[in-house]
């Protein structure tokens, strides 16, 4: 669930719910850590991270002061649900895991931003979606 300030265009993730099925969990804390890491990659990729190059092709986001990664304050409490359907193809009932958080989160976050802006006639086709990017999308839709 993403909320966007309708005047400053700051996006904020209010709620993030993710569920996965990795069969029998050997260590649930490791499973949740993997999911959290993947989700945060998606949050960062959509809302913050951006490789920027100047007109001559030189990278200009060469430090972590310019290339913005999500930190603890940018990540909402993640609500994680576990569905356990044990695999029958191995004795332990295990399945792979670790990508579930990362694969869904980019699309989920970008689609949530797009949905929050849809009533303004905005079509979101690129990321990142920081406040200035959203402002430009809204301005373009209005004109």
């Amino acid at each position, binding site marked *: 669930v993403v909320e966007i300030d309708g005047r400053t265009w700051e996006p904020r993730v209010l709620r993030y719910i993710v569920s996965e099925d990795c069969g029998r969990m050997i260590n649930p804390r490791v499973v949740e850590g993997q999911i959290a890491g993947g989700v945060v990659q998606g949050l960062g990729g959509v809302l913050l991270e951006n490789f920027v190059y100047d007109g001559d092709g030189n990278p*200009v986001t060469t430090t972590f002061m310019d290339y*913005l990664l999500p*930190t603890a304050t940018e990540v909402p409490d993640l609500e994680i649900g576990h569905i356990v359907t044990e695999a029958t193809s191995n004795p332990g009932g295990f399945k792979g895991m670790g990508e579930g958080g990362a694969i869904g989160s980019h699309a989920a976050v970008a689609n949530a931003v797009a949905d929050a802006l849809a009533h303004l006639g905005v079509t979101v086709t690129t990321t990142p979606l*920081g*406040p*200035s990017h959203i*402002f430009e999308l809204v301005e373009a839709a209005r004109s």
Partner: protein
Amino acid sequence: MKPAPFEYDAPTTLAEAVELTNSLEDAKVLAGGQSLLPILALRLSRFDHLIDLGRIGELIGIERANGTVTVRAMSTQADIGASAVVATGVPLLAKATPFIGHFQIRNRGTLGGSLAHADPSAEYPAVAVALDATLEVAGPSGSRRIPASDFFEATFMTAAAEGEILTAVHFPVWAGATGFAVEEVARRHGDFALVGVMAGVRLEAGKVAHAGVALFGVGGRPHRATAAEAALVGSAAPVSDLAEIGQLAVGDLDPPDDIHASGAYRRQIGAVLVERALHTAIQEAISHG
């Protein structure tokens, strides 16, 4: 990366620091290290000598006397945030402090360092401008005072001359029915603002008697919104046309583009933030009235 090698001096008196600053070749004053140390570590700059002001007792402390709160330059942002004298005498300075970096940074960063560095996106320079603070600098020929409105000249450029050290900042205490507010938009908590606003108002008999509004992140130095202030003074509180006042505040602004936000974004959101900050400040002033 690590900084290029430098000689480190840690004088214990201001006189000694001024002497070192003026006698050593290629020396830079270290006032906490919030900005200077990353600059050195990234090798954006290098100096042969660093003169650490952190051990000079006379540069630390916060006092209130005769309607003025004096914050000495090496008071840390953490000290300022925790000071009862600041909270009651200069509420805007207290309110701005949590927006600076994170608490680990505020344990090192100082008021003087922030003002002397003069980053146009920083909070404290805009507080000093909005409140008409006076900055005191010391050099080989003694000390002098510079109004905040004259101190900030351009990005990283101030009216302090080569060899002068910022020693203290004098903030006038706004008495009576006053309210203050900070608004800013940053990409992440603790990042430099894309655009921000410091606002203060004082009411008399239900009308705005005095207003101080400064925007930051919109150019080379804090922008004092004098047209907006003039329009506010005399208005009955609560003020109904704050959106127009917000537009007045950005009227002559042409903020720069950078990788985080366009100038057009900074300008438009600056107006929104002025409106919001003034709304909050006026509500607070009414509740104090």
